[in-house]
């Protein structure tokens, strides 16, 4: 609030702490949301499914297995806080998966699933994470590529 008033006083309507709120930008880049989907790839990246599988499992990256289980995936102790994602590509297209990974809390405001591309409007963010999304555009595009290819028929694990 204080930052807003200061910006107003200075006539700097579009700079300073309020820029993101002014454009209502939640994510690390402006995106166009259509229905329950983000049609355009983030950061103009082209996803790679093999890398996406690593992002999904790796503790230092997405670590999605904390909450999700995928049949046939080689990872111990897959969680069950979220729904199993086996055959996800049968249910959702890449644009829908993109919004769910980038900003799940936009679809389900009370979900425990983090919004991995979100940067703005957060509270008490740890110093080392401030201003950064949890995953990069490329990591998310890699996830989208891998998840969209999960089909129950002839599913190939990565």
């Amino acid at each position, binding site marked *: 609030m204080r930052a807003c008033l200061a910006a107003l006083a200075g006539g700097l309507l579009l700079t300073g702490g309020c820029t993101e709120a002014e454009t209502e930008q939640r994510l690390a880049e402006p995106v166009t949301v259509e229905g329950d989907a983000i049609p355009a790839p983030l950061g103009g990246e082209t996803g790679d499914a093999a890398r996406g599988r690593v992002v999904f499992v790796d503790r230092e990256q997405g670590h999605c297995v904390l909450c999700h289980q995928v049949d046939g995936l080689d990872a111990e102790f897959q969680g069950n806080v979220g729904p199993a994602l086996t055959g996800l590509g049968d249910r959702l297209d890449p644009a829908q998966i993109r919004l769910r990974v980038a900003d799940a809390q936009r679809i389900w405001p*009370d979900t*425990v699933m983090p919004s991995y591309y979100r940067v703005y409007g957060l509270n008490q963010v740890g110093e080392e994470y401030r201003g950064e999304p949890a995953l990069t555009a490329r990591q998310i595009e890699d996830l989208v590529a891998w998840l969209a290819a999960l089909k129950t028929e002839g599913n190939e694990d990565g």
Partner: protein
Amino acid sequence: MRSLGAAALLLLAACSGSRGEGPAPERTTLPDEVKQTGTAFLQPETRALQEDDFANPGMLWVDRGRSLFRETIGQSKSCAACHGEDGSELDAAASHYPQVDEESGELVNLEGRINLCRTRHQGLEPLDYESDPLLALTTYVAHLSEGAPMSVDVSGAAAPYYEQGQDYFFTKRGQFNLACSQCHNEHWGEKLRGDTISQGHGNSFPAYRLEWQTLGSLHRRLSDCDAGVRAEPYPLGSDIYTAVELYLAKRAEGLPVETPGIRR
């Protein structure tokens, strides 16, 4: 000028809307009939370790705490001089903490009370939060209350602290934007990889955590949960964590004190 005013209004609205994001999680409570101590969610081996006084590594801190309790430093009285050689005067004391200290009007947890005894009655310096001697004394005194039902007073002077702790519990925070309640009220019993999310009670603390390879305070656990959602943790011993501790103690009302717990 008019359009600048309109823009300013819009901007203000947008800015205020951007703080503390999202609809606050619903303030659900745990119904009494499902309330369960964290011990109930342990693997059988870990639980057996906790329940065996000879194997439980937390008992080393109890022993150490007992010696410190009886120790006389210089001119000062020992804790035992006031509270009984075997702490008999303190039997269920820990189950009623945190509580408001009448003299200062501030909320203190067991660690805080021990430090007040040192400065007011023993002429000693307070011990650092999370230091070995303070953990040992706290663990010893909490262990004296083993089995006593948690029962704190949240009325009167304690009420604002309780409110503050409750607010913290239901506020989303961190890069992951999650409130305590979302895991411990809404998703307990589910698997976060190898961990089963418990109801987030504090009745087994200080506890020995295998991940820490040592014993730590409840505040250290809270700090880990904050760090887990990539929020900036508060310092151990901070007023805000003590207020959360009070909220948790009330929320755990009736559960037995189980210090020293063993956790993953």
